[in-house]
């Protein structure tokens, strides 16, 4: 049996057509949302920095797809994909970006600080790497409280350079904490490539020295990532402690903001090309019927329109709200 066939079998044995539709719907939702934001941004209705996930949708979708409702997700300032993959409210997300009282953080957080505690989505932080130990503490609490939940924590390749990341790995394994670490390695921190920041690319080997099983998925294949996540998540649920995934991916847009920046001197469009060709949204689209595709697309366009309207028509917070919530 060739590897390709065995992979295919494995995929199909784990994902039925409903699953495929579910995944496609999430992928497209994120893609279209980010495109909508890029479209709206020049109007200055969104007065806050946005770090778009376009091109990176598959990681969040693959991983979140294998989580239960009770599970918890932590992410970063580049968190639209994870927020939506985890089932966050589109209306509230738009309202937040518009600075409205109906937003996820009542307008106080913006795109970089999306939060959705009801849906178990931890608030994200704009200081790189800081969400990792916080997610870890949340996961430790899940274990101590005897809750049947694990925490998934997304972060970028840059975050792995912060000391708190290694401190977290050590503690996670020492206390066998139910957490799935997911590094979204897009090869960039702002405009600086991994090669200018990493002594080596042996991240997974390093993680393994903590006895934390680690897998690297280089090809961006959503099913490979989903399978790896499924294995990791079931290991965690069996009490095997933390697990680690390093998923290669690529940031299509500029670091922050709605534009492209292939003419700036740090990368060329040639780098984008293989990732464009390997686009998982297009790929999964081809796996489902035209009918399903159109139904999903129509529903998403309607939701987006609604969300935009919701954000537009929602009120700004009253000036007195400046002083609320400093303390709980």
């Amino acid at each position: 049996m060739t590897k390709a066939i065995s992979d295919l079998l494995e995929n199909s044995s784990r994902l039925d057509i409903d699953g495929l539709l579910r995944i496609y719907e999430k992928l497209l939702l994120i893609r279209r949302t980010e495109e909508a934001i890029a479209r709206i941004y020049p109007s200055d209705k969104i007065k806050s920095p946005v770090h778009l996930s376009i091109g990176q949708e598959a990681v969040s979708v693959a991983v979140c797809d294998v989580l239960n409702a009770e599970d918890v997700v932590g992410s970063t300032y580049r968190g639209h994909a994870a927020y939506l993959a985890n089932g966050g409210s589109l209306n509230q997300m738009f309202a937040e970006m518009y600075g409205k009282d109906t937003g996820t953080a009542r307008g106080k957080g913006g795109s970089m600080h999306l939060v959705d505690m009801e849906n178990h989505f931890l608030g994200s932080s704009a200081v790189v790497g800081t969400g990792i130990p916080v997610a870890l503490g949340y996961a430790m609490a899940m274990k101590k409280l005897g809750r049947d939940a694990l925490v998934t924590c997304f972060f970028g390749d840059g975050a792995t350079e912060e000391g708190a990341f290694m401190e977290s790995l050590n503690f996670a394994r020492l206390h066998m904490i139910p957490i799935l670490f997911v590094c979204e390695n897009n090869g960039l921190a702002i405009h600086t490539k991994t090669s200018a920041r990493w002594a080596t690319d042996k991240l997974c080997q390093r993680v393994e020295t903590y006895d934390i099983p680690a897998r690297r998925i280089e090809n961006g294949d959503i099913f490979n990532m989903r399978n790896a996540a499924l294995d990791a998540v079931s290991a965690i649920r069996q009490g095997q402690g933390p697990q680690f995934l390093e998923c290669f991916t690529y940031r299509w847009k500029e670091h922050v903001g709605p534009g492209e920046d292939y003419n700036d001197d740090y990368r060329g469009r040639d780098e984008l090309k293989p990732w464009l060709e390997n686009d998982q949204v297009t790929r999964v689209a081809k796996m489902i019927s035209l009918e399903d595709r159109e139904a999903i697309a129509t529903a998403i366009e309607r939701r987006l329109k609604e969300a935009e309207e919701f954000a537009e028509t929602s009120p700004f917070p009253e000036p007195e709200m400046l002083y609320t919530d400093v303390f709980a």
Partner: protein
Amino acid sequence: MSLPENSQRVLSYVDALRESAELEMSNDENVFVFGLDVDDHKAIQGSTSGLVEKFGPERVFTTPLSEDAMTGVAIGAAMAGMRPIHVHIRMDFLMLCMNQLINIAAKSSYMYGGSVKVPMVVRSMIGKSWGQGAQHSQALYSMFMHVPGLKVIAPSNAYDAKGALAAAIQDDNPVIFVEHRLLYPTEAYVPEERYTIELGRARVVRSGADVTLVGISNMVLECLRAAELLEDAGISAEVIDPITLAPLDTDTIVQSVQKTKYLLIVDNAWTACGASAEILSRVVETMGTNAGADMRRMGFAPTSCPTTPALEDHFYPNPVTISKRIFEMLRGTAKHWEPDSKKAELAYQKQFKGPF
């Protein structure tokens, strides 16, 4: 608000801390204690002793030397509904976890629009004497007072230590809890049952007519000793303990200064941008133009803390330097006054002897 004596039992500061944690842990199983060496036989100078035996290693545990991530862990656990008490044997080490404290703990409630609470307590000790030096003697609470979203408490006696720690644990916000090492053996009447003191409420620990002394943490004791020395000079000093540094009870201090027209704030820290600067500024702003009061600050010398006793002795305010400063403020520099040297010697706090 004077110190109640309606308890027969005398307890030391360190035991009050221990007892408070024990009572709160018994009352709420979400409370846990962690931090470097909380569970060893020294038990943070005794302040966590017996806790691991009573509550087990799931609720009382040491950590790796990873202050930054461990603070994040406390924050995450607090967000999940638990109530961590994170213990540091030196306040200086909080510099390793400023990012989590300032950028996450202080801001989460606000930044996430009130959808998140961070009920955690960060206990840390201020070292002093026996050559602990530049890196083991800092009292850096003003950094935390600066940032909205944090509460800061520095109790000066066993009664407040017990009540304030309980209040901090029950509070839904991150609380920086500051303990001066030299206070640990000091005793007070402490009720056996659970109680809290109200955060944000100062206490007049000694009434007086001529000058208002505000002492912070261990400096409350030094101020009381200075007040005794000043009696010989016919000066009656009122001593106020803010207890909570953020939020600060300005009113109690202002009322006293309105009466005495003299204010000396004695801090157990540097004065520049310190708690003493904040207190002085608030009193000025509250009293307005015609305050006509003389207001001053004392604190650490504006240097790092040296190890040699030859210099360390001059680094800290003490009853003699405090009382002399007061005398100068009230009577001018023309007259020279020295407190009685025998009395001064008695007043000086017992030297704490290392090693620790």
